[in-house]
């Protein structure tokens, strides 16, 4: 087990190298650079040269990469070109916010999706099933920005409500924090729930078809036991895989929601960074997001081994 976990973490290294290299190259390839961004219409060759020197952009590429990655390994992601602030602490504080949003959204989506998925599976091919599946598909097919805009409009016009402006940390001011986070979390959660609902339904149906369910019934189990003790646990693996992937992709996918609700999360940071061509910020945060994503996947893999004794500690996809 320990060996397995260590091995899983070792697989991280090439992936992170791959990501750091590609993000570094992408940033080089993207037209536009921080210098012209910062100087705007005032740019002239002399100003450019001054600024490039100041930011260290006059060094050869491989040198820039190596010094960046070398420091990153030590937890030093450098300083923002724009604000000259240390990036790593900033990433961490932003990550807390995005992570909170993600977790809230995930929990909300489970609350919505799993019971509905179960009902839909149990009432297979009935009207209820039809309605639930339709709702789930809506969730899958509505772009979240449209949903978010509609909610803002609806709440402000009909209920005269808008979440408080000015972000407050979860621990600094829990009440305000929740007021700010709940609406975007609901929106993200609702959208996420579509696919979880579908997954719950289909994997539950799959499990219910299996032979051992008959054995359990033959032992005299009530349907409740069949469903909640055995079927659900067996159906969990694909659901967890999906949840893991969703949580992972939410970390970078909350961009749109964060922007609409002015939540100072990691997504906003990356987006601002991209727009401003603030290379260290973008590189650092993408690397961090990727790192968390892979770690979440590893955690999911480890979770499997707790749920499913058949899954041995082998590296696989």
């Amino acid at each position, binding site marked *: 087990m320990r060996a397995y976990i260590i091995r899983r973490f070792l697989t991280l290294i*090439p*992936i992170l190298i*791959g*990501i750091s290299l*590609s*993000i570094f190259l*992408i940033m080089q*390839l*993207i*037209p536009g650079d921080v210098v012209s961004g910062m100087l705007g219409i005032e740019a002239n060759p002399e100003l450019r040269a001054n600024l490039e020197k100041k930011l260290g952009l006059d060094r050869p590429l491989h040198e820039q990469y190596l010094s960046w990655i070398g420091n990153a390994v030590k937890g030093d992601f450098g300083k923002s070109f724009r604000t000259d602030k240390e990036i790593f602490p900033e990433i961490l504080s932003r990550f807390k916010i995005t992570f909170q949003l993600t977790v809230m959204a995930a929990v909300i989506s489970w609350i919505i999706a799993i019971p509905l998925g179960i009902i839909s599976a149990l009432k297979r091919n009935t009207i209820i099933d039809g309605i639930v599946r*339709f709702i789930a*598909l*809506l969730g*899958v*097919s*509505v*772009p*979240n*920005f*449209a949903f978010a*805009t*509609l909610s803002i*409009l609806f709440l402000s*016009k009909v209920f005269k409500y808008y979440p408080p402006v000015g972000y407050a940390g979860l621990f600094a001011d829990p009440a305000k924090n929740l007021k700010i986070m709940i609406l975007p979390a609901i929106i993200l959660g609702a959208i996420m729930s579509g696919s979880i609902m579908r997954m719950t339904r289909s994997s539950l149906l799959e499990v219910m078809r299996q032979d051992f369910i008959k054995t359990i019934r033959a032992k005299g189990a009530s349907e409740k036991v069949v469903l909640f003790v055995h079927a659900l646990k067996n159906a969990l693996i694909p659901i967890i895989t999906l949840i893991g992937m969703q949580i*992972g*992709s939410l*970390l*970078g*996918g909350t*961009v*749109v929601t964060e922007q609409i609700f002015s939540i100072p999360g990691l*997504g906003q940071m*990356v*987006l601002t960074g*991209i727009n401003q061509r603030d290379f260290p910020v973008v590189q650092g945060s*993408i690397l961090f*997001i*990727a790192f968390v*994503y*892979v770690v979440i996947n590893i955690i999911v893999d480890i979770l499997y081994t707790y749920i499913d004794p058949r899954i041995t500690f082998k590296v696989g*996809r």
Partner: protein
Amino acid sequence: MDWFKTLIKEIAKVIKGLLKDKVGRIGLIGVLIVIVLALGAPMIATHDVTEMFAKSKLKPPSGDFLFGTDDFGRDVFSRIIFGARVSLKVGIISVGISATSGFILGILAGYYEGKTDGIIMGIMDVLFAFPSILLALFIVSVLGPNLTNTMIAIGIVSTPVFTRTVRASVISVKSMEYITSAKSIGLSSIRIILKHVAPNILAPFTVQATLALSSAILTEASLSFLGLGIQPPNPSWGSMLSDSRKYMELAPWLAIAPSAFIIGTILSFNLLGDSLRDVLDPKFKL
């Protein structure tokens, strides 16, 4: 063209199966409608999509403008109809890119295992670990924003999913005895892959493709929202929807029309995918 006849026969069989299933029927009809709209756009549209009626900005639906007009005074109905073209094109071409590359990579990784597998899946893992919308954003930024590049970006972003699905099915097909049988009659690897492996992973692959189509349409919408989707004045549903946000209050029809079409299309593709899974699957559980 023996395989072609077979293919047509297979398709006919699948469509028959779909028509038998209520869900499949709805999905198929929905998809057909979108295709008809896209193909017949010039005939169905009532106005030129770029013509601006400065006097009729943001007008609600009327006999003249069936779905109203937008902030430039352009006819929303006609733009929606032509939007079907763009959205469908984005969907089909980007899925075409990701499906083709995912298919090839997935087969190579799954069939050869070992180092090939390690390298291919390593790259896929790297792609996967990028937040997808940001990756798409990067790619569009690098290549420059236009229709083609948007499709390429969406294609690249959705390649890993295909590769994984294909690889997983190849691995399961590979354990089938008919693959060993093919080896035992002396077929070369290439031939085995083409004749025996590839045709047998079509089912999960097709299902994945219908689902990817809908996510491509959505991704395009999100890219448009971030300002990097389809370039004006090409009407794509995603860009229409994201442009309409500002007027959601003033001119809700601007948002309703593209939303309804996006939802309808995605719904149809998903229903089709769901039903396809049912139609294609049992045969493969042999």
